[in-house]
């Protein structure tokens, strides 16, 4: 088995000197072919880019905001997940940007306590893991002749998304990215039955034959997708690209999934697990 995820991770960890962006900026300003007006345009462009970044950060940082928009008047969606804490912590090595959600309004204190504890523990664990990555990266950076004062801080974002919040189901995810390196994207899903106060399994939702049902559905969807769109590529399908990675065979026991707004199960695969990286995290709605 060739572990491309790990290899790409190592590639993404090649430290980039901070000096690079300044040098390129200078080059761009100096080499504006049409003379004096170009730098000006470049500045406008920079400003536009800055606004865009601001926009994106706003949306990213404050998914609580998006979540509220999500859940207010939409049919049957009820607000139960709120921002508990939102903070930024920064030092020379990292910028940690964390939004901790919490469960409220369920009328079930035990459930809320348990889930909220779990969320906080999970987030602490994610932070510890990310800090370890930063340290490792720093070590590699210093070993390869990097200078500590020039280290570009690692940006760690932790936030959440609500997938479904109706009378019966609550489904949401906590996700994490590190320094925009896509191989560090991780997601954790929570699926709760509000009537019983229990965490839902695929068996609860699809019945005892859940594995067979989902496996068959996913395979048929993969085949359909690869047939209709040549850019859709899954390992081992059509044998177009023997990438040294096994393709999808059958559902694993702790398969990631969530429940969408229509109440359907959506199976999610990690990036690189059943398809090449450019495909992102493949998702399959099981009806």
């Amino acid at each position, binding site marked *: 088995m060739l572990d491309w995820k*790990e290899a790409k991770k190592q*590639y*993404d960890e090649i430290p980039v000197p901070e000096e690079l*962006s300044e040098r390129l900026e200078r080059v*761009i300003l100096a080499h504006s072919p049409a003379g004096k007006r170009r730098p000006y345009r470049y500045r406008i462009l920079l400003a536009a880019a800055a606004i865009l970044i601001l926009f994106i950060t706003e949306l990213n940082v404050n998914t609580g905001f998006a979540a509220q928009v999500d859940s207010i008047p939409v049919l049957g969606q009820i607000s139960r997940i709120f921002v508990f804490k939102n903070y930024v912590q920064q030092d020379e090595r990292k910028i940690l940007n964390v939004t901790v959600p919490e469960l409220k309004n369920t009328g079930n204190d035990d459930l809320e306590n348990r889930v909220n504890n779990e969320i906080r523990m999970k987030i602490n664990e994610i932070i510890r893991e990310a800090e370890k990555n930063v340290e490792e990266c720093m070590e590699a950076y210093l070993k390869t002749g990097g200078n500590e004062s020039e280290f570009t801080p690692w940006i760690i974002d932790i936030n959440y998304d609500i997938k479904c919040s109706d009378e019966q189901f609550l489904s949401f995810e906590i996700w994490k990215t590190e320094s925009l390196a896509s191989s560090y994207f991780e997601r954790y899903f929570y699926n709760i039955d509000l009537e019983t106060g229990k965490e839902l399994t695929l068996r609860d939702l699809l019945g005892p034959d859940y594995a067979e049902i989902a496996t068959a559905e996913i395979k048929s969807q993969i085949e359909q997708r690869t047939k209709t769109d040549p850019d859709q590529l899954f390992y081992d399908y059509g044998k177009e690209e023997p990438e040294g990675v096994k393709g999808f065979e059958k559902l694993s026991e702790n398969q990631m999934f969530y429940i969408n707004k229509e109440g359907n199960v959506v199976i999610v695969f990690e990036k690189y697990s059943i398809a*090449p990286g450019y495909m992102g995290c493949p998702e399959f709605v099981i009806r």
Partner: protein
Amino acid sequence: MWKRKSTASKNYELFVEMIGSCQEDFYRFVYMYVKNPDNAMDIVQEATIKGLEKIETLRDSSYMKTWFFRILMNESLNFLKKNQKLVSSGEVEDNVPYQCEESQTVDRITLYEMVDRLPEDMRSVIILRFYEDMKISEVAQTLQLNENTAKARLYKAIRILKRQMERE
């Protein structure tokens, strides 16, 4: 009022934008060839200048990414040639073992390190495909190969890597 922009000036802006957002990828890509931060920065800078000078000649902006990766790769290879560091592989047979350097201790050699030791032409395909997440068609465009050749090269590289992995 906004004037309609010419393709050339639109391409220029897209190019500047791409340099802004993808420079880390460009740097890492070049670093894989030259293995030295200062040289890698020089090359990305040189390539950016070349790109700025030639961007007006690019007709279709959808090829901008592969077009620029090609410039980066050519600059890197020229640099290595000048510095006599390029190990020319010629046509390497599948069964030629790619040995780990002897200094390598009992540590398991990782896939990343193995990729690093592939001959240049195969390494480029792997880097573009798996590290830069390019589609085969884009890999082929970047290397100016036809798609089947790019595919064949990719599979050959994977075969070698797999075999080496098994030997480990």
